[in-house]
């Protein structure tokens, strides 16, 4: 198996090619932009919630295949699930890429495992994480909306 197959697994390329979740939600309940200054990637995440459930989630922006595939996987994995579920998937995804934890995703998010290969390409980890760091900020916003001070 050579390098390109190793990083660019078919499943990642499928998510990259899919434009299904690549659109803006207007209005969205939550909207956040994430930028990776070292490569210029720039992703926006849009989320609608409905009683603690993520009813719609989309992304838009400019990014490499790893970055946009990761964003697309994020959308697929979270839609219809709870905020809590999103938090759990997020922390497992980060764990897999930054702390070399074994992937352990719920079935509906199993595609994310394909991103494990990115671990061997340290500069690409930021690409894979961009959408997720953006999600992280949205989750904080949701939290503080839920517990206003």
């Amino acid at each position, binding site marked *: 198996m*050579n*390098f*390109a197959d*190793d*990083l*660019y697994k078919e499943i990642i*390329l499928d998510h990259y090619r899919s434009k299904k979740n690549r659109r803006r939600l207007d209005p969205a309940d939550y909207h956040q932009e994430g930028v990776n200054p*070292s*490569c*210029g*990637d*720039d992703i926006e995440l849009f989320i609608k919630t409905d009683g603690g459930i993520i009813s719609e989630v989309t992304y838009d922006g*400019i*990014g*490499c*295949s*790893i*970055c946009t595939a990761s964003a697309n996987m994020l959308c697929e994995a979270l839609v219809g699930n709870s905020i809590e579920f999103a938090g759990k998937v997020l922390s497992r995804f980060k764990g897999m890429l930054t702390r070399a934890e074994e992937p352990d995703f719920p079935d509906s998010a199993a595609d994310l495992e394909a991103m494990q290969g990115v671990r061997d*390409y340290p500069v*690409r980890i930021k*690409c894979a994480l961009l959408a997720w760091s953006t999600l992280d900020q949205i989750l904080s916003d949701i939290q503080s909306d839920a517990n206003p001070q």
Partner: protein
Amino acid sequence: MTRRSVTRTYPIDRIRAEFPILGTTMRGKPLVYLDNGATSLKPQVVIDAELDYLTRISASIHRGVYQLSEEATVKFDEARASVRQFINAGDDGEVVFTKGATESSNIVAFGWGRKFLKAGDEIVTTELEHHANLIPWQQVAAATGAKLRFVPLDPAGRVSPESVQSAVTERTRLVAITGMSNVTGYMPPLRETAEIAHRNGAVIVVDGPQLVSHHPVDVQSLGCDFLTFSAHKMCGPTGVGALYGRRDLLEAMDPLLYGGDMIVRVGKESATFKGVPDKFETGTPNISGVLGFGAAVNYLRSIGMEAIADHERELLAYAARRVGEVPGVTLYGPMAERGVAAGGVDPGGILSFNLGEIHPHDVGAVLDGEGVAVRTGFHCAQPMMQFLGVPGTVRASFYLYNTLEDIDRLVNALHKTLEVFS
């Protein structure tokens, strides 16, 4: 193995043998290094100069009375003379060693710009600039009230004496312009630009890291007032570069850094400083780096900058044609006409392009898997990206040791990229 050499006399095989890293592999494939715009590989003579310092000399310069320190000092001064000769500066006092071109630019911006510019003055620059020759001037403008003006570019990203003339007025005090774009390889008409600047009483700062590493440069005949460059892009070590400055200008400037070695006398409350270049070189310098820098310019001179520029010119023409033929490729800059330099002026050995809608990062990654090192992204030149209307490009940049085969490998890897992302 004998390589297809672009000219019969250019000693490509000997040159390649002098760079130990060219015998290695990347991702299991023989290394094709096309990221020379970022930094160059190092020949054995440069490695040896550094090693000699580390293993045999190891002493600090200047105030040591013992043999090792003496030897370090003599070699340090010799390196300065080598760099001076390389750009034909008038005397050694005009060559200031810095940590790199970025520090060199900041020394001018701080020591000349912030000291002498005032509200109402104008700084003329271009959208071609590397951030190192733009942000320092933005800061000077913000601090002094001077205004930045941009020379209009033509659609191929070039300036002409006329466009320079249209931006320079009697309020212009300084023209900051690249000697060679690190995105497109484009080389502005420096001599004419210097003339226009001087006619209007302005000084000209040339951002030189790409120009100096790839082309013969004579600061006196070009009429540069300041020239910045970095050793690491011209076969030398990292962490060292130079600022050339006209003696009278350097003498009038304030230093950016203060400390030891630059002083004549220090009291508790104040100090008096040495002349040029010493007042700009405080602190223990990058001694092994400077010795390596000296070895690097001597190495380049031994091959000849004309010969290197010719070699790269042929590589570029071939690359622009071959890469231009890959389906979906868009070339940027003067070579955009599929291998023919628009306007008939050959740019330096840099080719920037994109492959269809594929993100430059992805192109770079597939190339990496094929052993081909290129740079992708905005190349520290975001205004140039805004001008080109793209978020980034793939950049292949050539140097004395690259070959036509390297370009073939690049082209094959581009085809592979198309396959992966089809």
